[in-house]
């Protein structure tokens, strides 16, 4: 095997080994320069890996990495299709600027920031690449455990308060995740995603009912991770309490839930799944639309800038999941395009919010009149750019994404609802951000001492600008990106090609005879006394 064949596993191992190295190196003041260099070098190398993977995935060929050369349904596989590669590239695109920002000072506010950051990346990359449902759980846990510590990075009352709730809620969700996995395994006898794609259509009533219960339990868990109403209540407080670079990194974390919904309910429980086809359809679209509306209402009511952005995260996740809930290739393509843009913009906004609040002096991030910021033109333009992109004003990519979504929803029975919600949410997003912007930059009180620019070094500004620049780039390169997302969406609907690539000759129905547990023909066949 050549080096390129090992890229999928390297994308997971690189942050893992970097984290271990950073732990061994220690966290002292003397070694800080080196820990920063190693961490930055590692994320840059990770970006190169992600670029190579997306380049290969763009050809349409699925790369399958079988760990230890065990054939697919028995061993563990990593699968890179277009969507996985896109998510991996997005993770890198967020990680590099955010880490650069964190090296500007946040990493000194607590211990082992860089090691935890790398563990979080390992969990994210693993979750996007894995081809196994139980491994998805394991990588979820890896990224969650890292996020528990990152969330409380810098300590303080608010962070510990929201951190405790965040951890407890996530542990409860993990228990549900395991029950869902166990039910799916109990009904199909496999956890390999490709094998599931073949076996879920084969399950007949009455077993299919239990299988669907398992699938819907997984939907509850993923909706919790993605922060869909009514399971979104944890997000605004948590993200607002976390330090700026951590909140920016968490912008991709909700998208792991979105990705999992896509993979499990879009593909495996999607079209052509026999009795269990479209298990999530009656729930996903209404929930997602309500989430969008609730998110934007929260944004209008927010009293601080980070909370406003956190609520906008909820609103954007709602829009993405509404597009997934339409279950059509065009809508999925729109969802991918919109997902990439909204993640970049929201990460940029979280970083920007701290730049603004450190320059404002007494009021900090609260949305109340205060002394003017030291760099009103630069920061104001950045906020304007991000607001236009998030609300969906032309020619920003947010507009293109929403336009694709509206076009895709045209023939759907819910078209009126989708159009109304997307447009109204876009309008109120703009209102919310315009309100914030006018308070922050125009509603100044000259009687208060002027803000200093001590909080914004060139590195911090560069990190924030580069996130917003990537969003602009997404608009400039709209045509090739759209071609990629359209092909990725089409690939997601082809379960047979996925199964063929992963299982090869040995898998699928041929593997049935060597399997210790078979799908029982008789409902009572599993019973014994």
């Amino acid at each position, binding site marked *: 095997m050549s080096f390129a064949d090992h890229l999928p596993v390297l994308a997971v191992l690189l942050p893992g080994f970097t984290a271990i190295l950073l732990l061994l190196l220690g966290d002292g003041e003397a070694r800080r320069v080196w820990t920063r260099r190693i961490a930055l070098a590692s994320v840059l190398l990770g970006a190169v890996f992600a670029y190579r993977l997306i380049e290969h995935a763009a050809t349409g060929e699925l790369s399958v990495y079988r760990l230890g050369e065990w054939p697919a349904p028995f061993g563990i596989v990593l699968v890179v299709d277009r969507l996985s590669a896109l998510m991996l590239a997005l993770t890198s695109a967020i990680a590099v600027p955010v880490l650069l920002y964190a090296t*500007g*000072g*946040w990493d*000194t*506010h607590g211990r082992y920031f860089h090691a935890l950051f790398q563990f979080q990346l390992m969990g994210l990359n693993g979750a996007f690449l894995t081809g196994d449902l*139980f491994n998805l759980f*394991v990588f979820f*846990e890896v990224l969650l*455990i890292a996020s*528990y*510590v990152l969330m*409380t990075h*810098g*300590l*303080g*009352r*608010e*962070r*510990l*308060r929201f*951190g*405790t*709730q965040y*951890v*407890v809620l996530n*542990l*409860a969700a*993990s*228990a549900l995740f*395991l*029950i869902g*996995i*166990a*039910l799916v*395994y*109990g009904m199909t*006898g496999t956890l390999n995603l490709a094998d599931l794609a073949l076996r879920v259509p084969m399950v007949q009533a009455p077993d299919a009912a239990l299988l669907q219960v398992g699938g819907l339990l997984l939907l509850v868990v993923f909706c919790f991770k993605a922060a869909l109403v009514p399971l979104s209540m944890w997000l605004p407080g948590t993200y*607002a*309490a976390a330090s*700026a670079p951590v909140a920016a990194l968490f912008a991709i974390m909700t998208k792991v839930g979105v990705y999992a919904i896509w993979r499990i309910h879009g593909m495996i429980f999607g079209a052509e799944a026999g009795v269990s086809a479209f298990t999530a359809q009656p729930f996903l679209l209404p929930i997602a639309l309500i989430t969008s509306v609730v998110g934007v209402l929260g944004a209008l009511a927010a009293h601080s800038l*980070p909370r406003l952005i956190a609520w906008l995260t909820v609103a954007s996740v709602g829009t993405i999941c509404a597009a997934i809930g339409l279950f059509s290739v065009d809508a999925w393509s729109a969802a991918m395009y919109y997902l990439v843009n909204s993640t970049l913009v929201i990460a940029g906004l979280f970083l920007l919010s*701290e730049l603004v*609040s*450190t320059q404002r002096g007494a009021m*900090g*991030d609260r949305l109340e009149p205060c002394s003017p910021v030291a760099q009103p033109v630069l920061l104001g333009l950045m906020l304007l750019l991000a607001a236009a992109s998030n609300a969906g004003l032309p020619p920003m990519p947010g507009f293109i994404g929403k336009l694709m979504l509206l076009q895709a929803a045209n023939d759907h029975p819910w078209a009126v609802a989708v159009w109304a919600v997307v447009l109204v949410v876009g309008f109120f997003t703009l209102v919310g951000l315009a309100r914030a912007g006018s308070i922050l930059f125009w509603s100044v009180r000259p009687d208060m001492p002027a803000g200093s620019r*001590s*909080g914004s070094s060139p590195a*911090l500004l560069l990190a924030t600008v580069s996130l917003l620049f990537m969003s602009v780039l997404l608009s400039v390169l709209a045509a090739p990106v759209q071609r990629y997302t359209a092909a990725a969406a089409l690939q997601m609907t082809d379960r047979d090609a996925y199964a063929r690539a992963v299982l090869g000759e040995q898998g699928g129905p041929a593997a049935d005879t*060597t399997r*210790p*547990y078979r799908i029982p023909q008789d409902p009572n066949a*599993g*019973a*014994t*006394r």
Partner: protein
Amino acid sequence: MMMISMEALVATGIGFVIACGIYLLLRGRTFPVVLGLTMLGYGVNVFIFTMGRLWTGAPPILTAGPDVADPLPQALVLTAIVIGFATTGFVIELALRSSHDNDSDQVDARHDQPSAQIAQVAPSSSSSNPPR
């Protein structure tokens, strides 16, 4: 004499443990909540275990005989136990730290008695300490 099947017995047991877990999880203080999470974890682990079906006298490896037990759920349970153990340790530590810093044992860091003065003296504004 009526025989209760093993499935019914195990299912009832899992249901009872999970019900206890959920009850404790809904308490306000962190210690019962942690206990609830642990109970929930136990219930879930046994549940995963039973998804390989309950067999008696069946070997966990492939043989010529008709009955073979499924070893995979046992491997899954091991992983789930390890992860559950680690996270429980972490949540206890976090709860201790939170109760120390926030002066409250409640999960949402609210004060039990109406001692609103404490909250007024020190408004929580630690969320925005600037870098450097």
